[in-house]
C-alpha cells in the first residue's frame, strides 16, 4: 500500500495534514486577521463611512500601530491564501483547523482594534454618534464570539488527534 494513503489523524484525501498542521493554523490565522481588517476597511471606512481616515485625538503610538497592522493585514490576506494553495497541492488541508484559526485570527484582531486601537490609542471611533458605547459593546462582543468559536474548533481538532493516537 502506498505510504501516502496511510491514515494519520485524518483523511485519505489529505494524507499530509498532520505533518502540516502548523501551516494550516498559520494560513488560517493570517487569512482571518487579514480578512477582518479588509472588511473593516471596506465596510466601515468606505461603504458606511463611519470610521474616519484620521482622528485628531489619535496618539502617535496609535498612528504607528494602525500603520503596522494595516500593512501586516494586507500581507496576511494574500500570504495566508498562498499558504492555503500550498497546503492543497501538498494534500495537507485540514479544514476544521483552518477555519478555527481563521476565527481566532479575526477575533483577536477585532478585539485589539476595538479595545486598544479605538479606545486606548483613539485612532478613530466606530461611529461618531453620542451612544458610541453601544457600538463598542457589539463590536467587542462579536470579537469575543469569534475567538471562542475559533478556540472551540481548534480544541475539537486536538481532541480528535488524541483519539486517533490512542487508537493506533
Amino acid at each position, binding site marked *: 500500500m502506498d505510504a*501516502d494513503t496511510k491514515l494519520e489523524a485524518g*483523511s485519505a*484525501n*489529505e494524507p499530509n495534514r498532520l505533518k502540516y498542521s502548523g501551516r494550516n493554523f498559520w494560513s488560517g490565522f493570517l487569512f482571518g486577521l487579514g480578512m477582518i481588517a479588509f472588511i473593516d476597511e471596506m465596510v466601515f471606512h468606505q461603504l458606511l463611512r463611519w470610521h474616519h*481616515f*484620521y482622528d*485628531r485625538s*489619535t496618539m502617535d503610538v496609535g*498612528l*504607528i500601530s*494602525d*500603520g*503596522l497592522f*494595516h*500593512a*501586516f493585514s*494586507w*500581507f496576511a490576506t*494574500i*500570504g495566508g491564501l*498562498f499558504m492555503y*494553495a*500550498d497546503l*492543497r*497541492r*501538498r*494534500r495537507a*488541508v*485540514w*479544514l*476544521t483547523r483552518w477555519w478555527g484559526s481563521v476565527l481566532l485570527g479575526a477575533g483577536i484582531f477585532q478585539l485589539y482594534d476595538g479595545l486598544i486601537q479605538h479606545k486606548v490609542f483613539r485612532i478613530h471611533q466606530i461611529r461618531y454618534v453620542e451612544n458610541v458605547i453601544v457600538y463598542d459593546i457589539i463590536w467587542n462582543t462579536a470579537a469575543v464570539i469569534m475567538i471562542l468559536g475559533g478556540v472551540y474548533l481548534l480544541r475539537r481538532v486536538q481532541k480528535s488527534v488524541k483519539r486517533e493516537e490512542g487508537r493506533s
Partner: protein
Amino acid sequence: MIVLNHSQPHGHSHSTAFFDVAGLGPQLILAFPFAVALVIYLFAAATVKKKGKSWQGYRVVLFTIGAGCALAAVIGPLAEWAHANFTVHMLGHLLLGMLAPLLMVLAAPVTLLLRAMPVKWGRRLTKVLKSLPARIVTDPAVASLLNIGGLWILYTTELYAAMHDDVLLHLFIHMHVFLAGYVFTASMISIDPMPHRTAYLYRAIVLVLALAGHQILSKFIYANPPAGVPRAEAEAGGQLMFYGGDAVDVFIIFMLCLQWYRAARPRGKMSQKTSAGQFTPAAD
C-alpha cells in the same frame, strides 16, 4: 546652466523661465533618462528577436507603460500642475516612485540587456551588479530605508518647500524618488539577476515594515501638512498616498508570495502526483 536660477531666488513665482523649477529645462533633463531607457529597451528587445532568441511581448508592454508613467510625472501638464497643487504632486509621486518602478522591474530590463549584449559587455555588467555597493544598496532593508526614509525626510522637513526653489534639489529628489523606488521594488520581487537573493521571510518582514512606514507617513501628512501646503490639499494628498500605496503594494505582495509559492513547490513523488491532476476536494 543651473547658476541662472540663483538670480531668481523666489522660484515659485509664476514667471516660468526655461531653467525655473517649473520651467521646461528641468522637465527635459528629468525626462531624458526615461526616454533613453525606453529606446534602449525597445532596441534591445528587437536585437534579441533578431538573434532568434525569445523575449515576451508583455514585458515590452510593461516597460513602455512604466516609462510612460515616469514621463507623465516629470514632463508635461501633470508635472507643471504638481508644482502648484500638493494632491497632484502626490499623484506624480505614486507614478514616479511606485507604479513606474513596479512595471519596469517586472519587465526584467537587466535580463534583456544581458541577452542582447555581446558576452564581453554582459560580463562587465554582471561584475558591476555583483560589486559591493550594489550588494549593499539592493539589500531590502537598505533599499527600504533609502526609499521610505527619503520620503519621511522630504515631507517632514523644510526639504519639500526648498525643492520648489532650487532646481538642483528638484532634479536630485525626483531622480532619487524613482531610483529608490526601483531598487526597493527590485530588492523585493526582482526577476532580474540580483547580487544576492535574501530569504523570503526576511523580505516579507521588511516589506511589511516599509509599507507601514509609507502608510504612517501618509496619515502624518494628512494631520501635519508640509510647510506651504494648504490643509485641504494635504488631506487629499495624504489619502491618495495611502490608497494609491495600497493598490501598488498589493501587487508587490502578490508577486513576492507567488515567487515563494513557486520556489517552495514540493518535489519528487508528490509533485508528480500533483501534476497528474490527482487533486481531490479537501475534506475533514
